[in-house]
């Protein structure tokens, strides 16, 4: 048992470090990271920088390391991709813009698109030239995704799509998207679905931003009005849309893994810095108890990841333990955000980091963390998945099974 790289891994890590030192333009500042209410101001510029960085990485063989070369990847291993990610995380580089495309859209195309389409679309996705989004959730279909309504009706060699998607991250700067639709509302709900990829510039696609409680605006509503999609852009068979969606969501759960700062390190530092009564807050038994809880959770996640990496390093599939990261991390960040604000007493209400420098992080986390607990599978859905797929408990009894979709009760939604 050890935490060391194999010789090959260590050589690769060294090579990555050397390249990042020469090309990434500096390490991240240490100490508390600066949070800002990210509206869309400055976003276009950020996306441009992200594209430049992705292109530079691709030229050096670090773009999408684990993809085959013919699709714009570097033909490397999953382990090399992880090593690169670990190293890159220490540097100040634009991140996050391509996660959905590379983590979900790419893999689904690789599995279901024809060869010509893959060779046409994947290299520009890998290089960051074209950003992709995922058009799944709808106002009526969130956790119960298969309840979606967006209609696709056959018209010769095309399909005509009408309906609405929601919570679509990055739709406003995406060139392409993957889309799941209902082609037959008289079939049972999981059976009447069909999957496509589409050009987001198609006539009839309209993107409207959604403002989140944090003030940020990462995602959108997307409206479809008589949008024409060629049948050649269908992924999977007609009626196979649910299986294709599940493949994508499996990838999503691997892609959406770790929850960032503030974590134990930041709240620990804060409790040493601020006073509670006449002494540093960390001297309070109540504070110490909470800190210890978060420490073992944070360490538990870090070390669970080390177990997953061990499996990958041996060329094995990750075990079910990898599924707990977001579930534990989301709640932890929400509690840390709330506790961090509490430690500032009344000043905990102040959000403006210009007024109280270095202190906005906890308040921002307080406002942003509810989203983590919902996105990419809500806490409740993730618990169901652990119970049913890991512990093999029986599925829920469903009143909508084998009922034609258009006869399922919908309530007020």
């Amino acid at each position: 048992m050890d935490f060391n790289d194999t010789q090959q891994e260590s050589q690769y890590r060294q090579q990555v470090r050397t390249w990042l030192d020469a090309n990434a333009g500096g390490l991240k500042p240490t100490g508390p990271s600066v949070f800002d209410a990210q509206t869309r101001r400055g976003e276009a510029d950020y996306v441009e920088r992200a594209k430049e960085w992705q292109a530079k990485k691709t030229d050096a063989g670090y773009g999408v390391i684990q993809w085959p070369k013919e699709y714009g990847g570097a033909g490397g291993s999953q382990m090399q991709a992880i090593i690169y990610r670990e190293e890159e995380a220490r540097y100040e580089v634009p991140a996050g813009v391509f996660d959905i495309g590379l983590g979900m859209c790419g893999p689904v195309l690789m599995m279901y698109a024809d060869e010509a389409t893959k060779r046409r679309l994947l290299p520009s996705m890998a290089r960051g030239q074209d950003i992709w989004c995922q058009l799944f959730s709808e106002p009526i279909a969130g956790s119960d995704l298969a309840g979606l309504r967006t209609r696709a009706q056959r018209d010769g060699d095309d399909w005509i799509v009408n309906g609405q998607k929601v919570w679509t991250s990055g739709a406003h700067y995406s060139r392409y998207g993957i889309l799941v639709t209902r082609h037959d509302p008289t079939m049972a709900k999981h059976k009447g679905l069909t999957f496509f990829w589409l050009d987001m510039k198609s006539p009839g696609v309209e993107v409207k931003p959604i403002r989140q409680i944090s003030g940020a605006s990462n995602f959108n509503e997307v409206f479809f009005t008589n949008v024409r999609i060629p049948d050649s852009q269908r992924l999977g068979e007609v009626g196979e849309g649910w299986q294709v969606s599940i493949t994508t969501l499996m990838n999503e759960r691997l892609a959406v893994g770790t929850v960032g700062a503030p974590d134990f390190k930041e709240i620990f530092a804060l409790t040493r810095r601020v006073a509670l009564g006449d002494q540093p807050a960390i001297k309070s038994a109540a504070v110490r108890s909470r800190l210890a809880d978060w420490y073992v959770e944070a360490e538990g996640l870090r070390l669970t990841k080390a177990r997953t990496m061990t499996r990958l390093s041996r060329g094995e599939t990750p075990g079910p333990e990898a599924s707990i990261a977001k579930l534990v991390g989301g709640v932890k960040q929400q509690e840390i955000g709330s506790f961090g604000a509490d430690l500032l007493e009344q000043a905990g209400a102040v959000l403006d980091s210009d007024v109280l420098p270095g202190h906005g992080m906890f308040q921002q986390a307080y406002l942003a963390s509810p989203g983590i607990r919902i996105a990419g599978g809500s806490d409740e859905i993730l618990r169901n998945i652990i119970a049913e797929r890991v512990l093999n408990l029986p599925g829920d009894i469903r009143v909508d099974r084998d009922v034609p979709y258009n006869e399922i009760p919908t309530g007020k939604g």
Partner: protein
Amino acid sequence: MNFDFSDAQKMLKTQARDFLKSACPTTVPRRILDGNEPYAAELWKGIVDLEFTGISIPEQYGGIGYGYLELCCVAEELGRAVAPVPFSSSVYLATEAILAAGSEEQKKKYLPQLAAGKLIGTFALAEGAKVPTAKNQETKLEGGKVTGEKLPVPDGDVADFAIVVASSSRGPSLAIVDLKGSGVKREAVATIDPTRSHARVHFSGAPGELLGVEGKGWELKESIFDRAAVLYAMEQLGGSDACLAMSVDYAKGRYAFGRPIGSFQAIKHKLADMYIKNELARANCYYGAWALQSGAKELPVAAAGARISATQAYHFASKENIQTHGGIGFTWEHDCHLFYRRSKLLSLVLGSLHSWKDRLITHLEKQAEGSAASAAA
């Protein structure tokens, strides 16, 4: 990255599990719970025959000279089986204390006998309902004699000797005391887990042989407890896993309202939470195992992390296991309470969750001060 046990270690674990499945089904702890035997003597003999008592003892002292990762594998299985034997007191505490601080002569005298199961050792710290500190030890060591009372002492009624924490004129010290010798009176006390016996041990001028440096006993005790915390945590993890397996099994087979109760989300989510806590504990425990085996400087922090998360996981799993079972889980006849009792006992034996949380944060503060100081220099 190789954060896992080796194939050979996993084989040892399987061996231990298979042995305990046949030698220690829950009828064994139940027999101890209901009867008058202090521990399962035939099970203890079986464990000794498999040389589990000598795993961490070097061959020159009669052991088999494996490492701590191997001992961790066995500990996890003993915990899973709620084994009613004095293994933890004799191996994690007494053997480890002598390995850590014994003179050559003491090692030769005790270790071969401990490995062979001819001696059972234990560790005597608690003096009733108070948090033990370096300054509040009322048991005295004066002129090679120990005087005072320890309560409770795990396996104190059956152990051959105890390592006793006592104050001498130079400060807290450790003394090896023959519990069958003169000046020792002991009586078993009822505890929340009768499958593991405990005693009140009274010393009136009992001969005490110094272990380690006089006056340095507290530091020694701290380091012995750090090491033992990892091993106890592995037992806690094993017990916690057993509770999850029991709950899942029951939830699949028990029907209510015309369906398995495991199809209700109230049960599913509870068991998913059990799984999550167990996985967090497993990761922390493995880290503790790594630190113990490699003698890493991270050991105090890793041990506290393992102890805290395994205590939390076992508490949750053992109480919610009863809850999942409903009324039947609250009966004496059902096995749920074996785990519920053991969970609480193990969470107290080296000091409470409260104490270990405080200990963890103290170590982290020292680390932070250390790195701030080295950054300044």
